[in-house]
């Protein structure tokens, strides 16, 4: 990520053109050094908002999906409701939540939880539905009851699909946190927005790249976790 040539441009033009417009490079290592405290603070805020949202969404989505798996008639209303919520644009969603929660991180977290629900519910259901009947048959033959079958057979077999949903939800959440600027709680989005308002290109670019890097890093970490948790799924892909 070190892009020293940006910093170089700053120094060279500073001396040459005193009367021209000041250089406004997109990449500046100088910026990163000067603002490391801010970058760290907002990155931390971004991570906290993301993790809170995804974890809460999982705690809601997982039981809902299990319930719908057990009582099939719930599938259509559940996917329909989460689908409608998913269609509402993030800014509008924050606008609806704001009167109840105010200018606080809660507004952002509630909104992002609602967004993550659809992917998590859908993937969990798809994973459970995808357990081969032979596997169920075998477990039943071995004397597994309904609860034990769910925990020891169905959920482990569904785990790769469930984790794929968690990964998609996490990456989307990282990107969506930035919209939280509307209530002043946008993590790195705050820096993107601050950079826009002061026309500071390096700030916009650095915060944007950090956001993307955060999303991809969390995705990679989750992918590695999936592999460690499920040695049996390695050979499949």
């Amino acid at each position, binding site marked *: 990520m070190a892009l020293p040539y940006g910093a170089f441009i700053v120094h060279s033009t500073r001396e040459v053109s005193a009367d021209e417009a000041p250089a406004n490079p997109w990449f500046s290592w100088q910026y990163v050094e000067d603002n490391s405290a801010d970058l760290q603070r907002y990155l931390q805020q971004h991570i906290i908002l993301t993790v809170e949202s995804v974890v809460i969404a999982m705690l809601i989505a997982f039981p809902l999906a299990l319930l719908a798996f057990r009582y099939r008639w719930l599938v259509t209303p559940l996917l329909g409701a989460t689908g409608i919520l998913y*269609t509402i644009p993030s800014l509008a969603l924050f*606008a609806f939540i704001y*009167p109840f929660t105010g200018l606080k991180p809660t507004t952002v977290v509630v909104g992002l939880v609602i967004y993550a629900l659809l992917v998590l519910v859908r993937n969990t259901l798809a994973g459970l539905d995808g357990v081969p009947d032979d596997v169920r048959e075998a477990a039943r033959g071995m004397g597994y009851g309904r609860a034990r079958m769910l925990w020891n057979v169905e959920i482990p077999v569904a785990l790769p699909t469930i984790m794929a949903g968690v990964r998609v939800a996490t990456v989307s959440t990282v990107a969506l946190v930035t919209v939280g*600027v509307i*209530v002043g709680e*946008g993590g790195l989005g705050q820096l993107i927005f601050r*950079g*826009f308002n002061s026309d500071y290109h390096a700030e*916009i670019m650095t915060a944007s790249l950090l956001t993307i890097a955060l999303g991809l890093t969390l*995705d990679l970490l989750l992918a590695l976790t999936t592999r460690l948790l499920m040695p049996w799924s390695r050979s499949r892909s």
Partner: protein
Amino acid sequence: MNSFGAAFTWLNDPLNWQGPQGVPHLTYEHLYITFFAVAIAALIAMPLALGLGHRGRGGGFTVVLTNVSRAVPTLALLTVFSATAIGFGNRATIIALAVFAIPPLLTNTYVGIREVDPDVVEAARGMGMSGSKVLFRVELPLAVPLIAAGFRTATVQVVATATLAALVGGGGLGVIINSGFGQQDRGQIVAGGILVAALALVAELTLAFLQRQVTPGHARGPSRRAGLDAPEAPDFKERGADPSEPDAKERAVSVS
């Protein structure tokens, strides 16, 4: 609940329905941005996807593109384009949103072409069709349902994200929410939210209906009610919910 009462007061104020900051003009602007963003994205994505799909190459490329684009915040790209020479306002918005509309169009078209029954393609070749004839007379028509799904996803997504343009000086209905926050006017904030959500839902329902019209009966799921399914739920049902392939788009996204 006070804010919702205030929102209806706001919506009933005729002053809010007039002029360049009025609801009709902002709605028009929103749709105008959406149309051009999707059109530009289609001009880029469709030829690429048709070519790649026909040759059966580039599957990995579309998966990587979709995954990476998911990690890029729309706000970041909007800001970057707004801050450059491309300029303030709607031009920057259209370009930024077009970038985000490319992955769903590309993935769906690519998958649509790839999923055409190889026997059908074989038969077309056997009848002496040339490569381009196979593509345009056989593969493309058979891929129409998935391509339509791609257009629906892309368009609904653009309608939703066009709202964010207001944060960086662009137009569209997001302006109402944004200036509502600026003035701390809860009624206006919620009213803007209602308008934006309504537009997104109308777009979703309309496009779901259109998608249904171009999807042959046998490819539709058994119990579909127009529009009230989850955005991508129809595909999910059509495909018999294979564990590793929740639907065409998710399949491309979920495995990397």
